[in-house]
């Protein structure tokens, strides 16, 4: 049975009013475009262009490097300037294709598609795989892999993750307001793959307009309905979303398919629509540029590879000193040391905060208050796990279910002693995972 919420979680200041009423505006890049070859989970893509080649909009420039991988398409027309490592917003250096934009936006031929009625399931999956669509909520898991579970007949629910529980983010919200038909269309494509599945569009109750719009859009659709969830972070986390919408629970050893669910982000669903119905590969996405330090918070339709510093300028630049610039939202995003990074398939937002809670609030001793326990949506005891992490006690860490952590950050947010609990736990989880691989 659906519960519409979950135990634990936190209610951070959401900051969505800054940009929620700004329509999605297309943004045309000025500088060079950079396409990292690893924008997804899995093997990096392999470049199929060379320095000096001319490329067109929607032309494939890198081939998937394996089954769990995804191709990359050019979002502009121009010349390949270099193939060299570049910093991406996560802080690592990734081999990337650099393209000089000629400003003509000459389009290449689209994906080869048949009319939708004539497509078989294999055709649909092949188009999705070819289009380069990955999980655009942030994880970047190749969508065609997610849509190919072992037993597709056992999938009961396709959940469209429109919860958008991260503070400041409004890109999914704007998509729901402006492109409801695309979400429904994309969801119908996915439902075509799963005969016994029902489509659930999951929205938090702090977005009443989006709920009304989506409810209207799915009128007359027998297999699709809107599920209204309580507003709480991390409502959009996969396990929490499935629990809230369907009442089914899964742990770290399971995949959503094990409980008959497939979860896709709302922008991913619209990209599936673009690929399968319109034959357009993934070359752009909606990005929110927001935060207290931004002069004119906006939602842009951004061409992949666009420089992030350029996007910030397009949103009026900084009106006050940006103490922290985050790719993504403040709860799970990556703080960037340098703004000269490209937009990728998983860049949902650029959040510019005018204060830095981390350096302003010193860490004090744990007083065992249990706020982290109340906040933990996985039912863990973060304070103890962090103690085990401090002394690298891997056994105790696992006995206290440390590997179940989803790294949502609620414990760190709630901690009155300002201890980096989630970070310490994350660190130890990496060690355990590394040991398991040995």
């Amino acid at each position, binding site marked *: 049975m659906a519960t519409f919420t979950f135990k634990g979680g936190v209610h951070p200041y959401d900051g969505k009013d800054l940009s929620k009423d700004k329509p999605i505006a297309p943004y045309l890049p000025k500088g060079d475009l950079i396409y990292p070859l690893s924008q997804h989970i899995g093997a990096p893509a392999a470049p199929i262009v060379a320095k000096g080649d001319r490329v067109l909009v929607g032309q494939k420039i890198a081939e998937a490097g394996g089954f769990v991988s995804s191709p990359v398409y050019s979002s502009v027309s121009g010349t390949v300037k270099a193939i060299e490592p570049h910093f991406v917003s996560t802080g690592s250096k990734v081999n990337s294709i650099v393209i000089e934009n000629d400003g003509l936006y000459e389009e290449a031929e689209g994906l080869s598609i048949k009319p939708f009625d004539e497509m078989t399931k294999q055709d649909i999956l092949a188009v999705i795989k070819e289009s380069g669509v990955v999980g655009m909520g942030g994880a970047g898991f190749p969508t065609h892999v997610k849509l190919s579970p072992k037993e597709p007949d056992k999938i009961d629910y396709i959940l469209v993750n429109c919860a958008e529980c991260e503070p400041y983010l409004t890109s999914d919200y704007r998509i729901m307001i402006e492109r409801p038909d695309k979400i429904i269309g994309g969801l119908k494509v996915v439902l075509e793959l799963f005969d016994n599945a029902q489509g659930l569009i999951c929205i938090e109750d702090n977005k009443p307009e989006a709920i009304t719009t989506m409810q209207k859009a799915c009128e007359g659709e027998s297999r699709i309905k809107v599920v209204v969830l309580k507003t709480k972070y991390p409502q959009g986390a996969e396990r929490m979303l499935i629990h809230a919408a369907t009442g089914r629970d899964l742990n770290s050893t399971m995949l959503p398919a094990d409980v008959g669910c497939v979860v896709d982000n709302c922008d991913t669903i619209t990209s599936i629509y673009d690929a399968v119905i319109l034959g357009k590969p993934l070359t752009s996405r909606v990005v929110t540029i927001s935060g207290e330090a931004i002069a004119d918070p906006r939602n842009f339709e951004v061409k992949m590879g666009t420089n992030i510093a350029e996007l910030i300028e397009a949103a009026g630049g900084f009106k006050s000193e940006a103490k922290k610039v985050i790719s993504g939202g403040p709860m799970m995003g990556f703080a960037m040391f340098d703004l000269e990074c490209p937009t990728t398939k998983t860049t949902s937002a650029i959040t510019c905060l005018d204060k830095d809670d981390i*350096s302003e609030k010193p860490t004090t001793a744990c007083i065992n208050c249990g706020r982290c326990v109340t906040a933990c949506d996985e039912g863990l*005891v973060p304070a103890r796990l962090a103690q085990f992490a401090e002394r690298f006690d891997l056994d105790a860490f696992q006995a206290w279910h440390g590997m179940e952590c989803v790294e949502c950050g609620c414990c760190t947010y709630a901690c009155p002693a300002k201890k980096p609990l989630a970070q310490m736990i994350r660190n130890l989880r990496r060690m355990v995972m590394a040991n398991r691989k040995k």
Partner: protein
Amino acid sequence: MSDLRNVSSSPHIRDKMTSTSIMQWVTIALIPAAGYGVFHFGPNALMLLLVTVASCVATEYIYEKLMNKPITIGDYSAVVTGMILGMNLPVSATWWMAVLGGVFAILVVKQLFGGLGQNFMNPALAARCFLLISFAGRMTNFSYDTFTGATPLAELKAGNPVDVMSMIIGNEAGTIGETSVIAVLIGAAILLWKGIIDLKIPGTYLLTFSVFMLIAGGFDMTYLVAHLAGGGIMFGAWFMATDYVTSPITPKGQIVYGVILGVLTGIFRCFGASAEGVSYAIIFSNLLVPLIEKYTVPMAFGKVKEKGGKK
């Protein structure tokens, strides 16, 4: 590369609540009971409260200064310890007992074990018990003003009648902070409202204790109410059993802890030599906390209990 920005691992935002603000709220919540104590027992009560607080804060400051540690007196935890200790003293206690208690609480129980968050026993209660053992006569002399009688609990134990209404208001003999049930409950309401404590520990504590006393008292309601209103049970349940550091962090553990407290308090009050038993019940249960936590590790979300219980 001089314009590099601050980086941090996510999450990048923090809640407004800090340890200091929690301690400040606890201090505020203690004021009704402390205020009533001063009103009821007179200026000597105020002197004792001020001396215990000053002694605790000064001990913390001097120790940390000598040990070259960061000075943490600004976090109000020593103030809370001092207030709770003061409120656990009878009004006839002397100033040097207050000083000694403060030094023992902070130096021996708190700082020597590593400071805030590391003590295994409630510092204020440990100091009270230390004083109780060392100066039994003075610590159990509850005479004030012209009143020289026994506490309501002692009367109850002796089989004499007690005035329950007067016990709820607090117009009775006892330690400075414990006599008024109403004042303690006002403070408890503040803690509950600010989300600083929840009902798990005090609720199960009082419930278990009630059941125990109901059976021990032969289902006499007046006896039960007198026991709930008398002595340190209210103050202990809301302000001392709920001490974060010395209570279990696991939700189930908190229930177990409350039950143990209730049973122990009942045993001490019914079968012990003294009429009171809350302080000893709490510090004894403090020692059981690591054990309780070990057996109450919560089941993680989505995990099904493996057959054969704990793995």
